[in-house]
């Protein structure tokens, strides 16, 4: 039984919890609230009540399950291997089925289901954002309450979405591989430079990049909030879209999007006779950009140009614990010549962003963010590198509010800088190197 279709599907996970409370040691929400309902153990016992049919579906119950970042620290730290974050999602799904989703969220997810409308809204937003937001040095703040905290600093929407700026097919000069690129909403509408960096770096490595025009939101906001019906519709749509392309890999630049394609789609469509196999085939091709460059292309980063920055790294929860990519981003960054890495105290502690969590629980979210800011402050760097657009928005808000000078960059933007700085070398050598590299990785492809 698919785990999110019926709370029964998660019974074995619930029963496995021995209530030891070890999750208290790592749950960022618990550290702030010190409340048993804030931590996985409490939530699992509430889920057990739902399972036994003893729970009343109240707004209070909804709020308990809403107060979770899905950072997966509990699951990673659980001595019994309980997938606590999945139990919480299954409970959210059950509550959504019982019509407990707040109106605003339901309405938002309905729009997600209609990609055309969502795209239209955000394009309109880009034109008219000046009406609702005032610009300040580091981004924009709301002019009046629109469901956002007034003090919050949010990035401006890009003038033009990435996918309307770049062509659908981006051929590399020495083409040897072909990938599809799932941009994700944040890269498409806000940080378009990240998408351009992906195309640039991949083209440099002889990889053609196809950006399917039909793609839309991966559906993570709906799925994480329990709107499984919307999630399934979006899963099927993307499985269809990406199955059409005969590519070596599907590239993502956000752990949440990547994890949704790689894990959630398979879970959501597990019982579907048509889509299960298709979803698995798509999932197998999913590569975060760092994973693709390090493990598949085996790029020699030490040979790139110098990037003389001193940076610290924030590991996005869904890149590290979600997709299991703890090694690749740093392996890539630290090999770049001239660069200095200064680890913060807990690079893999959640920044408190967690998508819509920071909208609905801003106070807790900000307290968690403040700890991250203190960790960043302690590193004596001026750049924070991360691998997720949603973390980046959160970090930028914190840096602006705490008046810290740091700049936030996506890992691929740093790599792009290394390529740009290498370009200054004589062109002939660079070309030779590239051909060599392509021959080499042609061999490794078979092995993988």
């Amino acid at each position, binding site marked *: 039984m698919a785990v999110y279709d019926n709370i029964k599907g998660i019974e074995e996970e619930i029963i496995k919890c021995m*209530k030891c409370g070890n999750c208290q040691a790592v749950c960022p929400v618990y550290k702030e609230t010190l409340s*048993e309902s804030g931590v996985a153990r409490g939530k699992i016992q509430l889920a057990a009540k739902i399972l036994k049919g003893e729970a009343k579906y109240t707004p209070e119950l909804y709020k308990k399950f809403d107060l979770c970042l899905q950072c997966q620290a509990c699951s990673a730290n659980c001595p019994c291997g309980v997938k606590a974050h999945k139990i919480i999602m299954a409970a959210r799904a059950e509550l959504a089925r019982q019509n407990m989703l707040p109106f605003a969220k339901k309405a938002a997810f309905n729009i997600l289901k209609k990609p055309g409308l969502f795209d239209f809204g955000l394009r309109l937003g880009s034109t008219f954002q000046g009406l609702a937001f005032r610009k300040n040095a580091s981004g924009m703040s709301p002019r009046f309450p629109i469901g956002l905290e007034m003090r919050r600093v949010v990035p401006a929407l890009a003038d033009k979405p990435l996918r309307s700026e770049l062509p659908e097919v981006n051929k590399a000069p020495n083409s040897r591989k072909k990938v599809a690129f799932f941009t994700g909403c944040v890269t498409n509408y806000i940080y378009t430079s990240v998408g351009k960096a992906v195309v640039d770096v991949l083209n440099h490595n002889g990889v053609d990049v196809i950006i399917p025009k039909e793609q839309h939101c991966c559906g993570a906001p709906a799925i994480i909030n329990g709107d499984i019906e919307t999630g399934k519709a979006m899963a099927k749509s993307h499985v269809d879209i990406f199955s059409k392309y005969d590519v070596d890999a599907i590239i993502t630049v956000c752990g949440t999007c990547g994890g949704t394609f790689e894990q959630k789609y398979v879970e959501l469509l597990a019982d579907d006779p048509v889509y299960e196999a298709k979803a698995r085939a798509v999932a197998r091709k999913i590569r975060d950009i760092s994973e693709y460059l390090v493990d598949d292309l085996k790029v020699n980063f030490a040979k790139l140009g110098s990037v003389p920055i001193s940076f610290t790294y924030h590991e996005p929860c869904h890149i590290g614990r979600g997709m299991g990519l703890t090694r690749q981003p740093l392996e890539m960054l630290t090999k770049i010549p001239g660069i200095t890495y200064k680890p913060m105290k807990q690079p893999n502690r959640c920044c408190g962003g967690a998508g819509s969590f920071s909208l609905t629980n801003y106070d807790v979210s900000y307290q968690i963010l403040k700890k991250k800011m203190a960790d960043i402050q302690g590193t004596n760097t001026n750049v924070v590198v991360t691998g997720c657009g949603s973390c980046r928005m959160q970090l930028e808000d914190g840096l602006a509010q705490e008046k810290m000078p740091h700049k936030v960059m996506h890992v691929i933007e740093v790599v792009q800088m290394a390529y740009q700085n290498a370009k200054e070398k004589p062109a002939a050598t660079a070309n030779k190197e590239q051909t060599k590299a392509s021959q080499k990785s042609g061999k490794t492809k078979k092995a993988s």
Partner: protein
Amino acid sequence: MSKAQAIEALIKAIGKENVITEHEELVCYSFDATADMPSQLPDVVVTPRSTDDVVEIMKVANQYKMPVYPRGSGTNLCGDTIPLKGGIVLRTQKMNKIIEIDADNLVAVVQPGVVINDLNTAVAPFGLIYPPDPGTVATATMGGSVSECSGGLRGLKYGVTKHYVMGLEVVMVDGTVASFGGKTVKNVTAYDMVKLFTGAEGTLGIITEITVKLIPAPEAKKSMLAVFNKLEDAGNTVTEIVRSKVIPATMEIMDQVTIRTVENFAKVGLPTDAEAVLLIEVDGIPEVVEREAATVVKVVEKNNGNIKVAKDDKERDGLWAARRAALPALAQMKPTTVLEDATVPRSRLTDMLVALQNIAKKYDLMIGTFGHAGDGNLHPTILTDERNTEEMKRVHQAVDEIFKTALELGGTISGEHGIGMAKAKYLPMEFGEQGVEIMRKIKRALDPENLLNPGKMMG
């Protein structure tokens, strides 16, 4: 006088924001970390911020005859924080200040809600440690750990919580505040009330401030893993190491069931045909550590063991990985994990381990045993499924027999988890009715109406 009035009075006394009555929240305080226990909703959960708040709460509780259950992080293993008879759960999590670190007198003064690890982090810059290290150091509170008198992996050399508690401030059931003990090493002034409240499981008073002893952190340590083909050899090794005047900080044992489960789960390189392994760590001054380690190697080899000494921190982590995986690995085998802490004199360790194997056979249960061999404190871990009522019956019979055996070998029913609800019925087995009655008299004298953690220990 209704419960609603009592809740009103609590709100008036300590503020609305510190009084929880929402059903969904109450559910989260209806259980603790103990397996196979009933759960019970409290009527209200209160969050005092100071000793004064606790005094006010006790006055209301006393006036309305509402039971009070002190609770830290709810990680105890004897059902001690389950609000069995309804009433007030008093959670100390937000009384979490470290009041003082006095390095000259080697003491720290803390509020009960401080997490053990946080105290250790705070004293580390002074080169000091607070040695008691139960498995829950990262989550358990000082108040809870003093109330349960928790032990840990270093009991043999460093003792347990009660050896470190020097002073306590306690709020009595009627709201009276009393302080006992203090910062001096020597203190024989009247009854040793500090020891009485330590390990009293919240049945005699509410601990609101704790003064603990700190010690200098050991300069060096050395870890070793010894593998034995015969259980007896492992048991003999444990006693012979101590006979050789070496007191290791840690001397942990794992039986064959545990070894196989750990190896299956974590692939740490344990030989699955071994009957027992010992993880031994000596610590202290570097020269002494070297000498003691050499003695340990000699004793292990003499007793037909195969020993590996960790050369650096990385190898040390490797050896410890096996021990750390013991409970998680066992817990993943079956949905329900019943973890006991029967304890015997060190010299009877082998007898106890053999008896546990026989009990597992007799009741057709899977029991993995690991634990603190150096202090005779074993953790027979019964792997079962609480939904299987027939098997649970056999589990209960096996538990009865485990305790009976421990007592027959001159041991005790609880080494470090406490009595609570889980083991209250076994007390007469250990003390006789007359012994239990003496304890009951103390309980009645201090809490005549049984408002403090009722249903636990003394009933």
